């Protein structure tokens, strides 16, 4: 038996395999957009042919972090803002794993903003889903990095003086090679985008609009939305950086004017992923590192035979 026989197993995958056989603690509110992410993610798995044992899901803290409880795969519910660095290393340790990371807008654009930028910059082959509801939910409704300017909350009683972060443009500049925005109310598009993101060889960033019915009552349920790929109004080439940048600018501006634009914003297929780059320069082994620890025939060199010479 191979050490990681779940990886690459070829069989029909059923989305229900990703539902835990027990009722997890129901901590999402009725009507929460997070259910939309969960559903789309489960639906995407049979499409990409991944089984639960070969998927490693990394989450941060907050409502989005509960995704791990409802999604039956290998899971690591990390700490606030830190899902990406944990996920990155798991991918480097075993590139055959399907690595997905998820977090909220506070997690990915606030406390973990540094990691979000650097993971995009390095173009790790993984998928990052940001549950963007423009609010801190689990800590009970504080202003988040994507809350609109002037947003009032208990911690910003006079209305926020800060402009919201623009995650699509930011990630384009940082170096992400697949960037999309979708919404919980748009399940088919969400499923397709998640499946594409998983199949993309590089860092795929999905800004997933998830309404918060409890703490962000003024925020729209992100309807009506426009799918930019389906609309005649937006004719742009997703592989053209300048056109994508312009589209993102529009998308991000109009969101705060009440017009929800979703769809693929940028897709770059040429750039090698970080793992490929690292292998090309000889800084990463060809075979997955994790497998060596389970290979009885693996030879483990020792420093005595090789490094001590220099010190003699």
């Amino acid at each position, binding site marked *: 038996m191979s*050490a990681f026989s779940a990886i690459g197993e070829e069989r029909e995958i059923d989305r229900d395999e990703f539902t835990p056989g027990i009722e997890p603690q129901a901590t999402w509110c009725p009507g929460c957009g997070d259910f939309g992410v969960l559903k789309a993610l489960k639906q995407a798995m049979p499409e990409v042919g991944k089984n639960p044992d070969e998927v490693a899901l990394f989450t941060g803290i907050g409502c989005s972090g509960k995704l791990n409880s409802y999604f039956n795969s290998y*899971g690591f519910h990390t700490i606030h803002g830190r899902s990406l660095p944990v996920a*990155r*290393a798991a991918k*480097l340790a075993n590139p055959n794993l399907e690595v997905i990371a998820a977090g909220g807008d506070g997690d990915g654009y606030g406390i973990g903003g540094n990691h979000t930028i650097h993971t995009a910059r390095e173009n790790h082959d993984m998928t990052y889903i940001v549950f963007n509801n423009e609010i801190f939910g689990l800590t009970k409704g504080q202003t988040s990095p994507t809350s609109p300017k002037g947003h009032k909350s208990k911690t910003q009683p006079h209305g926020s003086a800060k402009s919201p972060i623009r995650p699509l443009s930011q990630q384009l500049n940082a170096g992400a090679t697949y960037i999309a925005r979708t919404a919980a109310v748009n399940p088919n598009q969400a499923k397709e985008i998640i499946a594409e993101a998983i199949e993309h060889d590089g860092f795929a960033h999905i800004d997933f609009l998830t309404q918060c019915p409890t703490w962000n009552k003024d925020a729209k349920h992100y309807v009506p939305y426009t799918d930019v790929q389906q609309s005649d109004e937006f004719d742009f080439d997703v592989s053209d950086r300048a056109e994508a940048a312009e589209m993102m600018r529009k998308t991000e501006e109009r969101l705060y004017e009440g017009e929800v634009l979703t769809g693929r914003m940028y897709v770059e297929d040429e750039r090698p992923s970080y793992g490929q780059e690292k292998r090309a320069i000889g*800084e990463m082994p060809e075979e997955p*590192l994790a497998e060596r620890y389970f290979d009885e025939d693996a030879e483990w060199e020792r*420093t005595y035979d090789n490094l001590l010479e220099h010190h*003699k």
Partner: protein
Amino acid sequence: MTDNELIWRIAGGSGDGIDSTSQNFAKALMWSGLNVFTHRHYPSRIRGGHTYVEVRAKDEPVQSRGDGYNFLLALGDSFARNPQEEAYYGKEELKPLYENFDDLREGGVLLYDEGLLDDEDVDEIGLEEAAEENDWHVVPMDLRGIAKEHGREIMRNTAGIGATAAILDISTDEFEKLIKQNMSGDMQEANLNVLHDAYEAASELDIDHDIEVPEGSHDEEQVILSGSNAISYGAIDEGCRFISGYPMTPWTDVFTIMSQHLPEFGGISEQVEDEIAAAALALGASHAGVKAMSGSSGGGFALMSEPLGLAEMTETPIVLVEAMRAGPSTGMPTKPEQADLEHVLYTSQGDSARVVFAPANIRECYTQTRSAFRIAYEYQIPAIVIYDQKIQGELRNLPASHFDEEPNADPGSVLTEAEIQDAAHHSSGKFQRFLHEPEDGSNVSPRSVPGQKDGRFLATGNEHNPSGHISEDPENRIAQMNRRLNKLDDIRADLDENTSHQTYHGPEDADHGILVWGSQQGTVFEAVDRLNENGHSVKALGVSDMAPYPKEEVSEWLESVDEALVVEMNATAQFRGLTQKELGKYGDKMSSLLKYNGNPFEPAEIVDGFESSIDGEELAASNMKYVPAAGD
């Protein structure tokens, strides 16, 4: 003070090649059969600024820097010729000369490069008076001139070595061998010429000093390396193939060595955006089945506090290295201190389960890093190796056979897929990763690795039930907390049985004791020998296990002495506090000798400190602090 030794100090400007020259000097002396030990002192600047390295050589193993030195090679600081800088820093080219006056022993030799200095300036610093008072043998030589004649000014280091050899009557054979090994072509030829010329020039001088370089011979093959080398090699030999880090002095040394060598061993090194990420990456790699490490120094380690807690809660094995420098905050980046002990023991929220080892020397840096990996992966717990800037950079020779050990890549308590099939599973399909009562009666619940069939589980920093689902059930909480914390007892028993990290020194029936931890052990042991020669009755215990604490060993030892002086390089007696806390008594038996001025102890200081403490006198030296016993 033993006379049968050479302590050669080379002083110059940071960036002038002082470090590499001293390394070569030490290696050549080792080749000639001597035992060597180096001590580095350098400023937190890239180029310029007073720096020195001491090389102590004896015919027996050397375990500390010794007291002062008996030969100074002062090369002048070549980066300090800008008048504007002079206004700020003073005449830097003179500093290698006069800043080293304090520690040069009576009768010592002072060889300086007059190539850069004006006679008037030398007059001003009072060299003549100081030399007369201390019976120094002052040797001005134009080392720069000799270097320029055959090559470039930078070769004055080689000229200095040649002149040193002549004055001390050491053969130049080993130095020639080094030059031939390290250089080729014109460079090699020029350096050999510089070496010979300086040797000839110095031979013609008439210097009547008393320094005798001892003769030694090793009975087995030696290697000379630093604590950072030893930690890195210990990690690699114990199967570590992943390192992630962010540069910070002095941790950078291990990070650099590992980054340079891991790819050769099929491993991965990642320099990342900050220390939170660094520790998080190590966690991710370990979660995915690879033996991983990260590390930092004080401020960077502070950022790792959260991932460290996550490793404890998710029982993900990792090894972190903490290289101490003087704090608080950024403190003194290039100066050693042992003041991060409490930081490392107590950082991160909640009741902690972690292992902390503090190796005492280069030998222990290797063995205890291996222990740290073995314990971390067998017991699924973070292990920290804490050491300081002193061991980090000091070089010492030891038999190569010390490293002649088999590698161990065993990932510890990870199951194979076949074993996972037979293990307990939850009704949700999840593998029971965090069993309350593991089947083998231990406190270690076996783990699986992503990609293994039917091994899926949730690792979470929240409290969780056996399959990893988040749980706030009170009974589950108690069961999980107890199991995690009880691992420390198991680890203590394992260490007691297999790997004692504590070192006893001196006569067993001595009345007085000196208790010491980490890098100051060798210096204390040397002081203990001298104290016994002086008619005292003293023994020492060097402790290297900080957590879990070796309560029994230390209690028994403390019982066996009338009183104990605890020696450590910090201002608040952190190790003494830990000992008292762990043992719950002996507060009336332990007094402290503390030093925190940026320089490690010298043996004579410990001798003085001990003698004044038992005589009830005040310390004569102002660079140390004595804190009497406080009671329980």
